[in-house]
């Protein structure tokens, strides 16, 4: 079992009137950055980095970051900058990027270089995920959504080649062309860092991940549709002639632990407060319907069972209350004693080899997050490891998703051969 920590790093400014427990709702892509306070931003960036350092100290295997653009709900517009810092100030945990938004890069050689540097500086701790991005990413970086999927696939192929084959070589593709590919940096891990694919909506993506034998991480979706979507991966794996296992699957959802049941509930309610986020069930901002329907961004037909409860179709109308989310396990909160059996339920239901606890988000404070991290380290993580062992849930760092073969203890040596 691989256990990661995630927060979306919201921009919280109680003074603005927009953010915080009683904030005004936000319409997607309609809030001017003239209200942005860089002093506050500075504090928040440092807070979120401190929390990651503490998460490592408390025993998390992975420190997960993500990236969105032109929006207050995620401060990681240049996620690789945060990852670079973590590469230097942490020692053991993997730095899990879920992920870089491939189609918005006009020059993916920058990614080849940046990520190889992060992998070297961290001594081989990079896990490199790719995403296709939401509409706001395409709009912010002016990348044509109708070519999103083509650019995703071509950029992936290009990056993997640039990481794993000696240069110089030429790349003459449809969307990317280079006459001299010979970056003066190579990834620490051979042949390259483990790749992951997080997602929620696209059937094309999960089928592609299964064909590439890349672990697929489902992001904050309800359990039954998630299981059905994982089945698409299983079915594709069968067609490809292999048996997918827990190493091929990951799941991210909201988990908060606290000292008492009362405090846990009070704080967990902050998941649905704070910066309005079209992604965040229970506290969606006003979605921009055109942004959700950018031409060609995802196939209008080839969508997953999770799509109807996920971002692309949420649009505020499928909002689920805090209570509903607690009811269906998409928010788990409580003391370690009550949280652990609920996590067991999720693990039994989905059988993921990687999990990411989404915490410290919405209107939660630094103290809220630190208490939860401490209790996770002291009680929850050890218990989850035991449950995972009992259920034989192996991570992609224990069993290779590429071969299905065990790869031994989690160690630098092992990690160095798990690149897919």
């Amino acid at each position, binding site marked *: 079992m691989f256990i990661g920590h995630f927060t979306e790093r919201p921009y919280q400014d109680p003074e603005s009137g927009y953010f915080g427990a009683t904030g005004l709702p936000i319409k997607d892509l309609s809030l001017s950055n003239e209200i942005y306070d860089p002093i506050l931003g500075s504090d928040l960036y440092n807070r979120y980095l401190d929390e990651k350092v503490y998460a490592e100290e408390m025993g998390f295997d992975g420190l997960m970051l993500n990236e969105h653009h032109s929006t207050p709900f995620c401060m990681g517009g240049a996620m690789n900058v945060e990852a670079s810092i973590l590469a230097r100030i942490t020692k053991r945990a993997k730095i899990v990027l879920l992920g870089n938004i491939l189609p918005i890069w006009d020059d993916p050689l920058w990614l080849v270089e940046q990520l190889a540097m992060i992998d070297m500086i961290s001594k081989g701790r990079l896990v490199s995920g790719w995403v296709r991005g939401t509409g706001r990413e395409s*709009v912010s970086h*002016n990348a*044509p*959504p*109708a*070519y999103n999927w083509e650019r995703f696939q071509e950029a992936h192929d290009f990056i993997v080649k640039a990481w794993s084959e000696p240069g110089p070589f030429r790349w003459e593709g449809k969307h990317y062309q280079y006459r001299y590919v010979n970056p003066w940096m190579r990834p620490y891990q051979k042949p390259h860092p483990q790749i992951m694919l997080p997602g929620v909506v696209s059937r094309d993506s999960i089928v592609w991940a299964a064909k590439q034998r890349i672990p697929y991480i489902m992001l904050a979706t309800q359990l039954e549709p998630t299981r059905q979507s994982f089945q698409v991966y299983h079915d594709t794996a069968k067609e490809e002639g292999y048996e997918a296992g827990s190493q091929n699957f990951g799941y991210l959802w909201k988990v908060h632990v606290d000292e008492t049941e009362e405090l846990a509930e009070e704080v967990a309610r902050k998941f649905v407060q704070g910066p309005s986020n079209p992604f965040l069930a229970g506290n969606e901002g006003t979605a*921009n*319907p*055109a*942004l959700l*329907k*950018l*031409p*060609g961004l995802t196939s*209008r037909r080839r969508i997953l069972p999770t799509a109807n409860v996920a971002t692309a179709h949420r649009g505020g109308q499928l909002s689920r209350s805090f209570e509903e989310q607690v009811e269906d396990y998409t928010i788990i909160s409580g003391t370690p004693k009550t949280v652990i059996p609920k996590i067991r339920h999720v693990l039994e239901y989905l059988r993921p080899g990687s999990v990411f606890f989404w915490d410290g988000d919405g209107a939660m404070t630094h103290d809220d997050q630190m208490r939860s991290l401490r209790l996770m380290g002291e009680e929850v993580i050890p218990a989850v490891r035991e449950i995972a062992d009992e259920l034989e849930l192996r991570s992609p760092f224990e069993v290779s998703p590429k071969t299905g073969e065990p790869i031994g203890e989690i160690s630098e040596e092992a990690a160095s051969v798990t690149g897919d």
Partner: protein
Amino acid sequence: METSRIAETLGILKSEDALAVSEASFKESSLELAGSTIQMRTAGEGKPLLVLHGELGFPGWMNYHETLAVDRKLYAPSHPGYDQSDGIDWMMQVRDLAGWYLEALDDMDLKEIDVIGFSFGGWLAAEMAVMDPTKFRKLVLVAPMGVKPEEGEIYDIFLNLAPDYLKEAIHDSNSCDEFDLICPDEPSPEMLELWEVAREQSCKLGWKPYMYSLSLKHLLHRLKNLETLIVWGKEDKIVPIDAGRIYHESIPGSSIEVMENIGHRPEIEKPNEFTKLITKFLGSK
């Protein structure tokens, strides 16, 4: 000559695809042209007039089609990738599409034709004409995209849903008889799908720079011997009228007509006034 006869002569019509649409004066067919299969509508007899639709695809058979087909042979294709026409993978900019169209016109054995292009289709018409001015007899550009206005910005169709865009395109939808045809209150699932198909294809061709070419303006001088009419609605909120000024100044000898109380779709908003203007221009020597 009937379209189907021309097509049969040329061996380009798949006869089983020829559709006779009831109570309409046009014929619809599926044609093999320049290596692709496209949806074509034809009507009338006389000198050929090619009608190039805009960014949301063929709008349906409208009054202006009917009137313009009275004494000429009208060709109204759906561009590759729009409506029922097959998409073409290598086509990534409007100039690619323009080159394909010239080959398609060769396949149809059409020469010295008149062409009228609307909005995105106006940009396409200008690109085709610049590439081969001798192919055309007269050129009509109706609020064409394709050049960067110095004042104002071209409306972003991709950050707005199709019905919102259409409402913005029409100056006064209450006095526009055909508005409900192009933008019904409750569009059918088929219509919604065709809009999305069109938006996706327009996105492939015009996302960046957004709906203009940096070089077209400098090539428009090639149209010095091609009689060109530019038509603009004074209240156009989609393509700023300053783009009309640039077209007009860049094409020697061109004329420009600015229509009062009309937005981006003069052919829909005031079809009688519009077709009179066009008929007069095309009819003159």
